[in-house]
């Protein structure tokens, strides 16, 4: 889907083992598949169905998303940073598109 825009903000860890706050937001209509258009036809579902965060290849969080989640999904969580490296955030769209964002951690 065009025009989808991920945004990520992660605190900078100050030492190994520090806990950092992660905030992620992505612009997406999250069409539920339940609505009808002006002619009464069902608008096909198109949502982001999965969101993952990895750190240096290790899975931090893996979320299955259902149609009840509203427009522009926002996730906030804490993660422990064991060593310098980088986060990779991935959003999976129903249409097969994958959006990614990264954040580097060093101290």
């Amino acid at each position, binding site marked *: 889907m065009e*025009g989808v*825009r991920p*945004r990520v*903000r992660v605190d900078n860890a100050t030492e190994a083992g520090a806990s950092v706050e992660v*905030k992620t*937001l992505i*612009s997406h209509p999250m069409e539920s598949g339940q609505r009808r258009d002006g002619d009464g036809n069902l608008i096909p579902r198109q949502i982001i169905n999965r969101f993952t965060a990895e750190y240096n290849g290790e899975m931090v969080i893996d979320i299955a998303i259902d149609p009840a989640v*509203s*427009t*522009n999904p*926002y996730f906030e969580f804490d993660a422990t940073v064991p060593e310098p490296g980088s986060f990779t955030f991935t959003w999976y769209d129903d249409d097969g598109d994958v959006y990614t964002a990264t954040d580097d951690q060093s101290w």
Partner: protein
Amino acid sequence: MPGYTRKATLAVLLAGTVMVAPALGDESAELVIDGETLITRAPAPEHMENMSEIMSGWLFRSSETQAVQMDDFDNPGMLYVDEGLDLWNVVEGEAGESCASCHGDAESMAGVRTQMPHVNENGELWAMEDYINNCRTERMGAEAWGWESNEMLSMTTMISYQSRGMPMDVQIDGEAAPYWEQGREMYYTRTGQLNFSCANCHEDNYGNMLRADHLSQGQINGFPVYRLKWAGVGSIHRRLRGCITDTRAETYGRGSDELTALELYVASRGNGLSVEAPSVRN
């Protein structure tokens, strides 16, 4: 015995009924974004006879909604600012120009929001959308954007964002005077099956509850606004149409002379409040 059981149940239900106070925001809160304090209270402009203080709609929202606007990351309206910055540099139309070709950096738009709507060189009152579409059709040779299209909303949000923190300062005298008078007339005229004027709610009753809604002064210094109800950014004219429809009146089209005149008058009631775009409301 079923009768007794029912009565007993009812009694329990009644005892469990508690009057729930509406979730009101903190009206004494300060709007600080990135270390900058925005003006959310100011002395009313001289032309306002019935009020002494003007207040941003931000003060009337719940503390949760207030908090979303205080953090640019949490504020989903910033997605439109990002989109608008991209559009600023897109070359479109026969002339092969982008906004940036003439105007340079988007920062050059600082202050524009505070003056909108504004009388153009032909003596017509134009909203920001009119100026943008004029640039597109006359200078770029591109197609005009729809008033409520994503492109237009992104552009107006991004341009307005350049003025964030600057006080609203629309012109109401000189060439603007007749438009301002027209808008003022509309503001105080009762309309619709419910027979309400703008002033009935936003001047006489701000601070009171309209069912579940905490009535504000109806200020537009925060526009374009990210409205949680819309799950998106909307224009001033969209909001004005919503209000007029709520009085069960026939409303005016987006970009109509009537709504632009009303926009000027309502904007002038906020002269002195900071531009907040993109603000967040419910």
